[in-house]
């Protein structure tokens, strides 16, 4: 079942067209990888989906409902959550308070008390592995902590669709595999659909069910990881070396 | 009717030019370091008092006291920058400079009250009036306007023909890139702030010509609103925007009382500033970068 339809989205900034007639379907319970060179429009697309930007034309349809003009906070309450590429924690709030914000304002908005939200937040924080830092101000966290906090906070609103924007950037290899474990667990336990923007090829190839490729605002390919890896257009634009791509997939 | 229009336009331009000059500093400081200088109005007031004391003590007319105002403005600008502004430029809270300059402004106003009392003072400099077919204009206004133009030209030269000016424009555009090109950003910021404050002081001195009796410690309040309307309408980051904004406001202040005079329940000269406030809000909502500001 299609959870989210991106239909013919065009987004311009002054003279630059960041997204040129992009259409993508995201199916329920899948992990869709979104790759492409820097500046290809991946984050812009996420911003349009979450409502931070309004498109110049096109539609975003979530569970059969047109949400193109819906404000961001309502999209969050409907079940769309995201992390930011450059982490944006609520600096002077503790880790716990950060997660409580999205719990109080997400799916359970108006239906949950502060004490219950606190307990739920503690659970999420434990799952993500940040319980040691529960009461530290989030501005004091290191890179890995921040990335995990982004994820924890996004989970707080109990999303059905999770948009991860380069959640592995800046992490060491062991941190990366920990994060990937967490992501796989989230997908399986909570039945969350994930769109993952990522540059790390081996990560995205291994974890994704399908992959879409953006280049200069245009979707140039979409399909299974193996197909993408053997796609001539993608290779020209991105990999430069088809054999290398195959090796990643085999692994 | 025709005479009225000419009178309005002439007065509007002449007074508007000085308003613009007085506000250029505000736009410049914002452009260079993204600081809203809430002390601006008090710098204007200090400039006005400089002209007053120059008149009373040395017999200088407001135009002749410009160099004195400029010097004082420079000193106070540099002092303010190094003691207060520089420390707060890099604080994580963007409101630090706002609060600090606001507090400084109030402190300066009270200081002036203590030093010079709240009495209204004036510089009764009059040289007669020119009567033309269509309008009459005090000669002092003409001299003020001319000095205003001269100063604007000087500022133009500074900004476009000197190294300092180029570094200011570079920092306005992109301070990081400027630093990489070897611009000493800290000094540029300091001098930029000082230039802004010099312009405010000079503006204050010249405004005295239009206010024969109105100098007092709290005159800043009136100019607070005026200057922000001018700065925002013209475009905060651009000093020339202040001139455009000044002209617009100058004309508005001439036209509006006449139009408002037809409404019996309104006191036209006091209602006009409120109108300018409405314009401020509309511009902030619809076109916050102003007329000459950078489009986002």
């Amino acid at each position, binding site marked *: 079942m299609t959870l989210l339809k991106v239909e013919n989205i065009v987004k311009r900034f002054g003279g630059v067209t960041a997204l040129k007639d992009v259409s993508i379907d995201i199916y329920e319970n899948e992990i869709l990888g979104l790759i492409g060179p820097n500046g290809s429009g991946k984050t812009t697309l996420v911003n349009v989906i979450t409502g931070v930007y309004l498109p110049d034309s096109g539609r975003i349809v979530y569970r059969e409902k047109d949400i193109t003009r819906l404000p961001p906070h309502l999209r969050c309450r409907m079940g769309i959550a995201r992390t930011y590429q450059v982490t944006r924690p609520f600096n002077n709030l503790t880790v716990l308070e950060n997660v*409580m*914000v999205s719990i*109080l304002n997400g799916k359970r908005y108006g239906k949950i008390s502060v004490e219950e939200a606190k307990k739920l937040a503690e659970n999420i924080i434990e799952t993500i592995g940040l319980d040691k830092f529960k009461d530290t101000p989030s501005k004091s966290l290191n890179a890995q902590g921040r990335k995990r906090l982004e994820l924890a906070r996004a989970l707080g609103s109990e999303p059905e669709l999770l948009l991860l924007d380069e959640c592995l950037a800046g992490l060491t290899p062991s941190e990366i595999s920990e994060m990937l474990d967490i992501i796989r667990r989230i997908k399986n336990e909570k039945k969350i659909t994930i769109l993952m923007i990522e540059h790390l090829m081996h990560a995205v190839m291994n974890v994704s069910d399908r992959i879409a490729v953006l280049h200069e605002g245009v979707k140039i390919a979409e399909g299974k990881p193996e197909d993408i890896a053997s796609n001539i257009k993608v290779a020209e634009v991105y990999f430069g070396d088809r054999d290398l791509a195959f090796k990643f997939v085999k692994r | 009717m025709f005479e009225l229009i000419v009178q309005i336009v002439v007065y509007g331009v002449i007074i508007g030019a000085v308003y613009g000059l007085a506000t250029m500093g505000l736009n410049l400081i914002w452009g260079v370091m993204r600081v809203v200088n809430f002390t601006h109005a008090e710098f204007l007031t200090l400039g006005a008092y400089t002209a007053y004391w120059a008149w009373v003590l040395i017999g200088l007319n407001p135009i002749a006291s410009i160099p004195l105002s400029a010097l004082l403005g420079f000193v106070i600008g540099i002092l303010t920058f190094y003691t207060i502004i520089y420390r707060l430029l890099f604080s994580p809270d963007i409101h630090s400079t706002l609060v600090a300059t606001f507090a400084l402004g109030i402190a300066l106003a009270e200081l002036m009250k203590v030093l010079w009392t709240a009495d209204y003072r004036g510089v009764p400099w009059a040289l007669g009036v020119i009567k033309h077919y269509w309008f009459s204009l005090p000669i002092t206004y003409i001299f003020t306007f001319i000095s205003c133009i001269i100063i604007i030209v000087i500022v133009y030269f500074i900004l476009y023909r000197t190294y300092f000016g180029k570094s200011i424009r570079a920092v306005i555009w992109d301070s990081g890139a400027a630093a990489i090109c070897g611009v000493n950003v800290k000094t540029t910021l300091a001098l930029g702030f000082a230039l802004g404050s010099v312009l405010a002081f000079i503006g204050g001195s010249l405004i005295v010509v239009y206010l024969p009796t109105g100098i007092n410690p709290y005159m800043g309040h009136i100019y607070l609103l005026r200057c922000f309307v001018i700065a925002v309408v013209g475009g905060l980051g651009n000093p020339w925007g202040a001139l455009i904004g000044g002209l617009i406001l100058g004309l508005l202040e001439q036209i509006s009382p006449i139009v408002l005079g037809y409404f019996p329940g309104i006191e036209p000269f006091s209602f006009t500033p409120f109108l300018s406030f409405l314009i401020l809000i509309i511009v902030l909502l619809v076109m916050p970068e102003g007329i000459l500001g950078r489009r986002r």
Partner: protein
Amino acid sequence: MGDVGDIMKKYVGFILIYILLIASSLISKAYLEIVYYILFLMVISQSLNIIMGFGGLYNFGHAVFIGIGAYMFALLVVQGLNPYLSMIIGGIVSSIVAFLIGIVVLRLRGPFFAICTLCTVPAVRYLIIGGKIAGGAAGITLFRYLGEAYNPYVLTYILLLLSIAATVLTLKLSISPLGYSLKALREDHDAAETSGVNTTRCKVIAFILSALFPGIAGGVVAFKIFWVMPETVIDLSWSIEAILIVLLGGSGTAIGPIIGAVIYEILKDLLMRYFPGLQLLIFGLLVVAIISIAPEGIIGLLRSRFKRLRDFLI
């Protein structure tokens, strides 16, 4: 039993300060004046704390709410309405005006919000004078209507009640969903939105709440000075004092403005006595000092230095 202990800890600071204030007010007329002004400052800064401390929006025009309350008070009293009822209505009208101003002005961010709110102070004055509203520049005199009812003790204790009410509101806010949402949007507006926070609604509610108590306090001020004029009841220095005290005490905490107001007023009084005229320059330096050294205010400093005091300082 531990719970009762916790609760007591939370409120001990407040209770101590209020008892101290009440006691001082009974010492002499001079002390009464000081306590009056301290309580006034508490009310306006605690209420500003809601929008500025929690919401991160520096409302430089906070003084306008006081003025609106004062004018409503005067207009109603002149019509024969009971002064205390007039004060309350003044507060309500102030909140309504806050709503109307807020839906327009709260869309602005950072410095633009500051500029706009700062300009509302002269703008409202000009509106009153220019629109010849409520007596225009001449204002409204209240001697005839209130002369006999004037009692400085009553006015001071009204401010005491207001201060307690504002503090209770702030305490409730700090443990409410709205409080968390406000703090989130203060830290990062967009991230708050994508986390589900309806930033517009939260800001507007906070703004309305922040106007209620200054509105009522405006009535108290009008009662005290007997002559409501644009210059006397719409005073820019109230804005800066409120902002200063919030910063001095500690943004976003409930006890911050309380302690801040006390320290500020005492400092100001001492300076006036020993360095007359200089107090405002020193005051300007104080602002800079606070902002650069202790951006979290005195409460922030105390909380990080003395961890055991944390429970007492919320």
